[in-house]
């Protein structure tokens, strides 16, 4: 479990969570990035950039 940096809600994470993973906060809907796994740290995910995606 970790705390959402946007709303302070609880975010449940699986054992297979990896650094850099994108996770949605179930409470506020924010898109979060796992910036560290031991201990778990979440940050607001970077905003979509012009050259993202396929």
């Amino acid at each position: 479990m970790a705390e959402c940096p946007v709303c302070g809600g609880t975010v449940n994470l699986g054992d297979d969570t990896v650094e850099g993973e994108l996770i949605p906060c179930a409470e506020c809907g924010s898109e979060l990035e796992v910036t560290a796994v031991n201990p778990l740290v979440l940050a607001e995910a970077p905003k979509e950039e012009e050259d993202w995606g396929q």
Partner: protein
Amino acid sequence: MIMKVGFLHSLIRPEEKLLIKEFESRPGVELAMIDDRKLSFNLGKDHFAYDVVIERSINHSRALHALRLFECAGVKCVNTSKVATICGDKILTSIALEEHKVPQPEVRIAFTEDSTIQAIEEMGYPVVLKPAVGSWGRLLSKVNDRDAAETILEHKVTLGSYHHSIFYAQKYIDKKGRDIRSFVVGDECIAAIYRSAEHWITNTAQGGKATNCPLTNELKDISLRAARAVGGGVVAIDVFETDQGLQVNEVNYTMEFRNSIATTGVNIPNLIVDYVLKAAKE
């Protein structure tokens, strides 16, 4: 013998996580995560211990240049920088398709507002104006008449970077609510989905719904020809169904497939990992 696979990434999306799990399940494979946000190159002096690098960056510009830099350091990459260069630019993609005689919608390219208006009117409305570099259906404009064309072109020139002043206009295809995305891994077209939407933009990133699409011989043939035209590897082909047969819209080199595994019943990450490990040995 251990095979060392470099996994170039930024954010880890569901696709990357599935690929990581697949690599980690393979005996004799050591996966090294390479976050492009922490990466720097020492040109001419880099020595990387990777047998192969798989590119899964979310940013096209970083992916393109990192691939070329890894190749310069002697590292085999999937996909190659050549494929990334062509697929990342719709103009270069259309040129490659034309040179390989792969059917595609009519396309005009021009560099000023006046010449673009003239080109569009020669082609006939409606057309779709697209940024040469861009994905997920962003900034696509369906232009139905001259008023709209003038307005959109003026906005692009005034508000956009110089990239938005190289105009790529594609004849609008009435998709009747769907298009096809097919997946090619090496010499095989492995699966395909229909992407359906009421909106004329059918990208799943824009809400398009994915359903399984049968692999007909025509679809497999045009998909493989499009893949070869851009240099091969692991690519996803966007295909239109038209009265003149199938036509290729775009080719994607860091394909997203989260909506396509359950839909098609094909283990896409498994096949990608097979391909990458095989490529490392060649």
